[in-house]
């Protein structure tokens, strides 16, 4: 019954869809195998899979055309990519289930949209490198001694009870919501040349010294976390869990930021990656919330910019691939194939050479030079110039990654991007802050 229902959903009335054609050809292939005409089933499968097109959408960070080209080369099928901003990604995952096969979303988005039922859990026994996935995404602990950070930690929304599970499980169940692909630790970006002194705390964002030269990002669920890091560092607000604030905590946080805004602390708020780059590169802003590749983009213009490690720790985020609930049969197989390939190292290396981390670092190592691995992962000084996958020089020989090694950075995560129980209230307060 449920199967019928699913099929109905997929086939527009009266039309022959790409999917029904695919199904037909799969059936023919099956028949061919059954009749013994052709013995090697995998070969048929390999022929068939070339006709598959998987539609992936997600934020710009990992939706790169190079990945699609490599998929075509290595796996033979077509991957169509659409890059969107986080709000639009959320919107699509929640409201347009038929517009995608694979959702490349962040864990907090997953928490928000999983309940809409548009994604299906993945069988971890089909994931070849599952055992090698970093502990952060499984037990929540990077190393056995790690303390689990606040917020929507990936492992807390990473598993459900079964293939159709609607509620998140506390521990590894064998059914994963998202296969982690990419993550990083975020902090404040600064212009050391314009500040001219060491910066070591989140409190500096609201330091009157930078009046009219500070900025924060205007994406409520991320911005509120940066704001909380600042308020906590100032000692003004004590949080039970920054990733799940009470109404009172939201009010206090927003009161502090509203006051700062009215006093002219902020030059602008940014919403997209490019805006943050422009604000920093033009010198309009000298300290702001920023994402790692934005720092790189500023530096590649020859302008000094530091991703400043701060004593209170990082605000971290992670993303992963989720499968559309509409996927089945050959296309589902192709999707698993794609995910296994994703964790196999090539993409990991590609992303790590841009400053992100891969969920399975050890496979990525095979696709990076020793110097690159030393610089990006181990926090060692670069021996030669470090280039990104596109061939641009990112760092000169001798430089060291801001914040150091993988364990230094990911081990100092204070909270994860999150969706709160009081989300609706928080969003209203955030909008009031923007309008104030």
């Amino acid at each position, binding site marked *: 019954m449920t199967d019928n229902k699913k099929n109905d959903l997929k086939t527009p009335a009266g039309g022959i869809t790409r999917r029904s054609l695919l199904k037909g050809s799969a059936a023919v292939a099956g028949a061919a195998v059954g009749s013994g005409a052709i013995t090697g089933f995998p070969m048929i499968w390999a022929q068939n899979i070339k006709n598959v097109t998987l539609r992936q959408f997600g934020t710009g960070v990992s939706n790169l055309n190079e990945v699609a080209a490599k998929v075509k080369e290595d796996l033979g099928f077509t991957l169509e990519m659409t890059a969107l901003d986080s709000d639009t990604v959320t*919107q699509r995952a929640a409201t347009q289930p038929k517009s995608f096969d694979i959702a490349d979303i962040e864990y907090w988005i997953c928490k928000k949209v999983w309940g809409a039922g548009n994604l299906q859990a993945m069988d971890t026994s089909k994931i070849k490198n599952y055992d090698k996935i970093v502990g952060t995404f499984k037990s929540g602990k990077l190393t056995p001694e790690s303390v689990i950070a606040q917020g929507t930690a990936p492992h807390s929304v990473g598993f459900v009870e079964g293939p159709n599970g609607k509620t998140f499980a506390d521990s590894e169940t064998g059914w994963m919501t998202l296969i982690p692909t990419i993550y990083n630790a975020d902090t404040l970006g600064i212009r050391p040349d314009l500040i001219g002194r060491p910066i070591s705390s989140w409190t500096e964002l609201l330091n009157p010294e930078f009046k*009219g030269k500070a900025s924060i990002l205007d994406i409520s669920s991320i911005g509120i976390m940066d704001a909380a890091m600042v308020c906590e560092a100032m000692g003004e607000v004590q949080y039970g869990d920054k990733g799940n604030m009470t109404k009172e905590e939201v009010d206090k946080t927003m009161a502090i930021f509203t006051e700062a805004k009215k006093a002219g602390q902020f030059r*602008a708020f940014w919403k997209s990656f490019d805006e943050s780059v422009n604000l920093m590169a*033009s010198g309009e802003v000298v300290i702001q919330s920023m994402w790692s590749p934005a720092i790189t983009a500023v530096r590649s213009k020859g302008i000094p910019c530091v991703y400043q490690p701060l004593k209170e720790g990082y605000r971290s985020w992670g993303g992963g691939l989720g499968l559309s609930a509409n996927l089945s049969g050959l296309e589902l197989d192709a999707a698993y194939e794609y995910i296994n390939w994703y964790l196999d190292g090539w993409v990991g290396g590609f992303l790590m050479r841009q400053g992100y981390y891969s969920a399975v670092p050890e496979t990525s190592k095979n696709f990076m030079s020793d110097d690159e691995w030393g610089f990006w992962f181990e926090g060692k000084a670069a021996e030669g110039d470090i280039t990104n996958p596109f061939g641009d020089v990112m760092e000169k020989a001798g430089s060291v990654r801001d914040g150091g090694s993988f364990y230094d950075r990911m081990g100092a995560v204070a909270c994860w991007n999150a969706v709160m129980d009081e989300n609706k209230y928080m*969003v209203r307060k955030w*909008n009031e802050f*923007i*309008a104030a």
Partner: protein
Amino acid sequence: MRDFAVNRTSGLLVLPLVCVLALFLVVPICLILVVSFWDYNEWNFFPAFIFDNYAYIFTSPVTWATYLRTLQYTVITWVFCTAIGFTVAYFLAFHVRSQTWQIALFLLCTIPFWNSNIIRMISWIPFLGRNGIANSVLLDAGLIDVPLEWLLFSDFAVILAFVHLYTLFMVVPVFNTMMRIDRSLIEAARDAGASGWQTLVHFVLPLSKPGLMIGSIFIVTLVMGDFITVRFMSGGQSASVGRVIANEIALLQYPAAAANAVILLATVLLIVSVMLRYVDIRKEL
């Protein structure tokens, strides 16, 4: 009997328009109205009949602040657009004598509009920035010692962009009405001893009212509904009603956005109907 036939013909003639308007204007607005009473959670919205969305709008101090700010933008933009638009149209209609030149100059006015709205707006950002062209020129000329901060990401920047973007919407209708003013009236005024100023105030201005009103309606509706100019030019620091709605849509709060849209629509309709009381546009067209 004949009247009935005429009525039926005109009824049939008007039918396609009625259908198009009903389908693409009335139905969507009704849907918005309906959805504005619905409830929502993080990922979905569902039928309900609640007044929460409206209750929040009317009780939140932010709504009042936002509307006040939006109206303020509208009024100031309108004043500048009208002053500049009227002057430009007057120059084109009365000072440029040859029709060829009138057309040439009029086309010249429209050239910037061959480009995208967004591009024209964003070009102001590097120009007005802290290290932008405007500040460098002023610094080099010795007129200021430190860069002017209020040039960009301020209300000044927002209004500058609005005026730049929308003045033509005033020039065109005013120019159009001015061109239809009977020149012998001006001669008569001159013969009767009116000065240039008196002619302008007592003849040209009243006769241009329909054009001014059409232009004003354009500007009011454009500025009231804007969300992108305010966001970019204020650096995301100022709110307008349009931005609030855009934010709510981005956060999947469709019912809240619908309620806001209904209130905005009502406000704009109210303003426009008041404006229409002063001039009967249909008589003038």
